[in-house]
């Protein structure tokens, strides 16, 4: 199918920001009429995806979508196919809605869209990646006498027929006629998403003309002297037959101009490899250059006849997509059976006789070179996946938390006094009490709830210091500040909301205080007017016209209650602090008292609470930052209980309750007593983590001082932050959060030696004739592979000693003797009893690592089964493969063995053996033993018997069978992917195939061979429908 529409673009255009929605600007727009709608924004996109290093030849990207994306699609297709030889991008332009349906059905990889997704569409799993953003210009005819300025609210009123005469806008009297676009127009849909149009049905009144095609020329031709319409700015900005109307005193070439239309691509939540590759390219510098070319081509009036003549196909015109499993495939007459040599030459047999047929069996591996090449290349999809998913997560999260409080409840704030526009529940009148002593334990506990809110770019921390003071610290990338200033932000402010017992997204805060901030000082001490209440800090910019452009918001933090104590009237100061504001509540029905903290003598300050608390915040998809404040009293208590080794622990707690279940993985870092923060690598992103600080006792008990709230580490792209990794700690320290002496403990300087616990076992003490052993092999600078063998008798001994959970531990043992000193870091992975290997992430390369396999007891003792030799994880990939294991220094290591990891790629086309339809039909109908599988759960296994290629060579039979399941919809629980057909094998009597049959399917059981006559025996396959 060719493009359905011809789009003639003949203007030179401005280059529009490659943008993604910014929640800050969304907030700014929402501030005018906040209603929770997702809005568009103009900020430059922080999202860029790296160029794939390679895309397999034969990759086909199927793309359908909006006609507004035709030129961009074409440009990207051309560049993509040039960049990656052998790839194909199939284009169609059936419209956004149809394309989205096609994506959902899996008929195409990507939809090219010219509008934002609706919430409903997002809920269906669709994810958008913005490629460009176009301003939408409001236009009138060149002879229209109106030369004024309108607001977007006025344009909405014009659109709805509420403003019908130009004189209402300051122009000469005359009726206004709206020239509207068709309802399917992406530009129209984009405008409809703005807040000014929310709350009422998006439709014109009788004062309108609606063009039939989403064509700017058609709109322009309809304008006349009384019409007002809208169009992509780049399509009209240089035309002399239209006049662009200023909005809010600016034209569309100004970043502050409000209306824009996003253009981009949409995929399902689980993008296809082809989609990932194309998105990776589209967002790469090369791809972006192509997009810019396309935009310029649009603006310079490229006639799309040529474009439309390009090979664009709709999915339904593509070649037969049926796989071998599909009945269609079987019936496809195009699948002509190939001449099949039926004569069997036993000398060429590949079963037992294969050994005697070197021309067949002794095949020099043709992929040896290719494999080597493969090893030298990062796997392109994996390389892509992190940033892509990061972008996905960023996109998904971009609007979270962006819904500011209803605007009516918080008027635009120009001064420190913020009068709510509506009555709000009165905060209890508070007599400010400066506690003479420490705060009660309950307060201490509450104060420990320091939390960090984080957007992909900016975050703010609100930490209670005591019942009268909190501390806010934030990080905002400079370009984010610049962006918001460009959007009209004039003054950086911090708002402190009293959110006790309310949902700030749904209700008005009890009070709002606003504080001046400077971009150079990322922190502020905040006076707390009312104690024993919940607060939220929000950082943002106030614009000239009072709009609030939110940068980041912290979660709720409970400020502890002040203990009852005599009020010292000297310390009650009803004036605002220099940097602070005054909180008024409930329309002056209640006044929240203020406290002047800075004027107090240091000695009179309320003593800082000493809660033991720890905060964990994600810094990127691979890095998190832990900050803690440990009460000396708490530390002393735990030391009295036997605490010896001060440790930070990072737990992967995804979908578990850490109090009830073991963590999926645990990282352990020895800490100096004075340390208060640490950057920690994150093994796997898009998972939940918890940090704990505490002590390990000599007998391996864990005494916890504090535990953080769980955080989700996003699959974010890694980008430079304004501060180097170490700067956060430094900034925090200079800001006063960290108590004196706080340091980041460098890896490897944990000072407290930890002798081997007496309960540890080595091979020498296990009774098995076969030793337990474990091998750790570097796989890449970021990954290693552990393989172990632990005979059951050895395991049984440790179980008798209390071993409960089989665990793999990876120690960073660089330059230390693990028998005498604690590891620099430890990763722990719970393993199933049947597990024998695991790939583990390596956080820091060019260091030595040791693996141990063993059991963890209920009381946290470690019973070691085996320890590997130390292995240096090299810094460069080329040093990784075929790395000889370091000669063993432990009894349990494997001496002088070489370990090698080979990685090969098996491509779906290049490495797919073609059977014709006739052959498949024969397999399915004549050869295999078949069983219809009605919907339900099945357990399939070899019950008895074996398959024997023949006895000539004396081999015994092997229990195996091959399986082909087709013509339905099934899920092999090993892959957990619904498919229409799949292959499997059963090898051995213990292997099972667990199938969820969603639609009736057929199971075929059979063998493969080239010579039948000497085959012997049979297997019995048990098919149990549960």
């Amino acid at each position: 199918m060719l493009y359905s529409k011809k789009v003639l673009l003949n203007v030179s255009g401005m280059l529009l920001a490659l943008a993604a929605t910014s929640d800050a600007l969304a907030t700014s727009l929402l501030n005018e009429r906040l209603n929770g709608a997702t809005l568009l924004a103009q900020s430059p996109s922080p999202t860029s995806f790296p160029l794939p290093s390679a895309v397999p030849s034969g990759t086909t990207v199927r793309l359908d979508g909006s006609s507004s994306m035709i030129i961009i699609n074409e440009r990207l297709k051309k560049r993509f196919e040039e960049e990656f030889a052998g790839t194909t991008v199939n284009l169609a332009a059936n419209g956004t809605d149809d394309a989205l349906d096609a994506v959902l059905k899996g008929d195409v990889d990507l939809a090219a869209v010219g509008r934002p997704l609706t919430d409903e569409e997002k809920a269906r799993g669709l994810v958008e990646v913005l490629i460009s953003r176009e301003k939408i210009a409001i236009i009138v005819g060149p002879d229209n006498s109106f030369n004024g300025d309108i607001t977007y609210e006025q344009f909405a009123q014009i659109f709805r027929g509420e403003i019908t005469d130009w004189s209402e806008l300051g122009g000469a009297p005359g009726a206004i006629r709206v020239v509207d676009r068709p309802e399917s127009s992406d530009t129209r849909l984009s405008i409809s998403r703005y807040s000014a149009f929310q709350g009422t049905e998006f439709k014109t009144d009788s004062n309108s003309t609606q063009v039939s095609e989403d064509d700017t020329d058609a709109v322009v031709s309809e304008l006349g002297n009384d019409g007002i319409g809208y169009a992509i700015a780049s399509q009209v900005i240089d035309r002399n037959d239209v006049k662009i109307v200023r909005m809010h005193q600016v034209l569309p070439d100004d970043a502050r101009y409000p209306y824009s239309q996003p253009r981009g691509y949409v995929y399902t939540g689980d993008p296809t490899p082809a989609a990932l590759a194309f998105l990776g390219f589209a967002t790469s510098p090369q791809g972006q250059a192509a997009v810019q070319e396309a935009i310029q081509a649009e603006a310079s009036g490229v006639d799309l006849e040529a474009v439309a003549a390009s090979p664009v196909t709709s999915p339904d015109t593509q070649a037969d997509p049926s796989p071998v499993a599909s009945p269609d495939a079987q019936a496809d007459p195009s699948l002509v059976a190939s001449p099949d040599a039926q004569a069997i030459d036993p000398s060429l047999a590949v079963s037992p006789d294969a050994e005697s047929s070197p021309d067949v069996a002794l095949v020099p591996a043709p992929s040896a070179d290719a494999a080597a090449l493969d090893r030298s290349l990062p796997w392109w999809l994996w390389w892509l996946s992190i940033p892509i998913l990061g972008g996905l997560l960023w996109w998904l999260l971009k609007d979270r938390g962006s819904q500011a409080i209803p605007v009516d409840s918080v008027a635009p704030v120009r001064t420190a006094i913020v009068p709510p526009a509506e009555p709000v529940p009165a905060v209890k009148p508070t007599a400010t009490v400066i506690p003479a002593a420490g705060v009660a334990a309950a307060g201490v506990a509450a104060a420990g709830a320091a939390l960090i809110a984080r957007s992909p770019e900016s975050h703010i921390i609100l930490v209670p210091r005591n019942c009268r003071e909190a501390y806010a610290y934030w990080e905002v990338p400079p370009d984010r500040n610049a962006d918001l200033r460009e959007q009209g932000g004039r003054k950086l402010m911090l708002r402190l909301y009293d959110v006790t017992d309310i949902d700030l997204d749904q209700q008005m805060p009890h009070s709002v205080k606003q504080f001046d901030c400077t971009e150079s000082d990322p922190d502020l001490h905040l006076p707390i007017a009312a104690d024993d209440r919940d607060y939220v800090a929000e950082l943002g910019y106030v614009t000239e016209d009072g709009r609030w452009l939110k940068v980041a918001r912290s979660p709720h933090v409970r400020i502890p209650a002040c203990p009852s104590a005599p009020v010292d009237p000297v310390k009650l100061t009803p004036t605002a602090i220099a940097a602070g504001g005054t909180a008024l509540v409930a329309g002056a029905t209640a006044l929240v008292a203020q406290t002047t903290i800075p004027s107090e003598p240091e000695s009179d300050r309320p003593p800082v609470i000493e809660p033991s608390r720890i905060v964990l915040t994600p810094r990127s998809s691979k890095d998190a930052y832990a900050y803690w404040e440990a009460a000396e009293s708490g530390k002393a208590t735990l030391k009295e209980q036997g605490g010896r080794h001060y440790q930070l622990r990072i737990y992967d707690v995804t979908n578990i309750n850490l109090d009830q279940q073991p963590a999926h993985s645990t990282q352990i870092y020895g800490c100096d007593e004075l340390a208060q923060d640490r950057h920690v690598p994150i093994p796997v992103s898009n998972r939940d983590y918890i940090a704990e600080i505490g002590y390990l006792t000599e007998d391996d008990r864990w005494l916890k001082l504090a535990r953080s709230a769980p955080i989700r580490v996003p699959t974010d792209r890694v980008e430079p932050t304004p501060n180097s990794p170490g700067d956060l700690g430094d900034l925090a320290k200079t800001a006063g959060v960290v108590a004196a002496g706080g340091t980041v403990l460098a890896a490897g300087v944990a000072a407290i030696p930890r002798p081997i616990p007496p309960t540890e076992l080595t091979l020498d003490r296990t009774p098995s004739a076969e030793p337990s052993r474990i091998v750790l092999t570097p796989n890449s600078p970021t990954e290693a592979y552990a393989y172990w063998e632990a005979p059951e008798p050895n395991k049984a001994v440790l179980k008798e000693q209390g071993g409960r959970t089989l665990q793999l531990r990876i120690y960073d043992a660089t330059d230390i003797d693990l028998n005498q000193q604690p590891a620099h870091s430890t990763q722990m992975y719970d393993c199933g009893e049947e597990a024998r290997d695991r790939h583990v992430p390596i956080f820091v390369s060019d260091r030595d690592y040791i693996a141990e396999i063993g059991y963890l007891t209920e009381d946290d003792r470690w019973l070691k089964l085996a320890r590997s030799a130390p292995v240096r994880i090299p810094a460069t990939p080329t040093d990784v493969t075929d790395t000889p294991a370091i000669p063993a220094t432990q009894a349990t290591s494997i001496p002088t063995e070489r370990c090698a990891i080979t990685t090969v790629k098996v491509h779906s086309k290049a490495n797919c053996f073609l059977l014709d339809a006739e052959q498949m039909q024969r397999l399915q109908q004549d050869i295999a033993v078949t069983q219809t599988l009605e919907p339900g759960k099945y357990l399939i296994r070899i019950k008895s018997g074996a398959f024997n290629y023949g006895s000539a060579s004396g081999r015994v039979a092997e229990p195996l069978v091959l399986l082909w399941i087709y013509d339905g919809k099934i899920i092999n629980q090993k892959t957990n992917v619904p498919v229409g057909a799949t292959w499997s094998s059963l090898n051995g009597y213990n292997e099972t195939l667990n199938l969820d049959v969603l639609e009736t399917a057929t199971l075929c059981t059979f063998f493969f061979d080239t010579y039948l006559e000497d085959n012997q025996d049979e297997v019995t396959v048990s098919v149990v429908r549960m």
Partner: protein
Amino acid sequence: MEGCVVTDLKVHSRNNCYLFTPEQMQRIQNEVAVSIALEPGINIVKIREGAFSYYSGGFKGEPLVILWIYGGKVINRKTEVEVGATWSTLNGYDDTLTLDVKEKATLCAFFLDTYLDDNDGEVDLSVVRI
């Protein structure tokens, strides 16, 4: 096993064996499959990444691969039988084929299909020799 339906299928080594011609097998081994030489020792084969997609009816790709091991004596630890050649598949990222290679052998990894053009994806196979 109340509530369950149990069916036994007898699969015979000759009657239910699909015959590849030698030319077909040679093509699989020499031209189609990715081949890896297996040196004696423990070799662990896993799918690391990726998926194979037929693009049938909108189904997503599935991490699977078909394996043919030949040319030397091996023991698949799942069967514990020493054989000169064997078939297996890997299904999913947790599925592991542990081969005790007694004599140098060759591992062929490939897919089967009747129509290639709409296939998509690839799988990364790792072979770790201990």
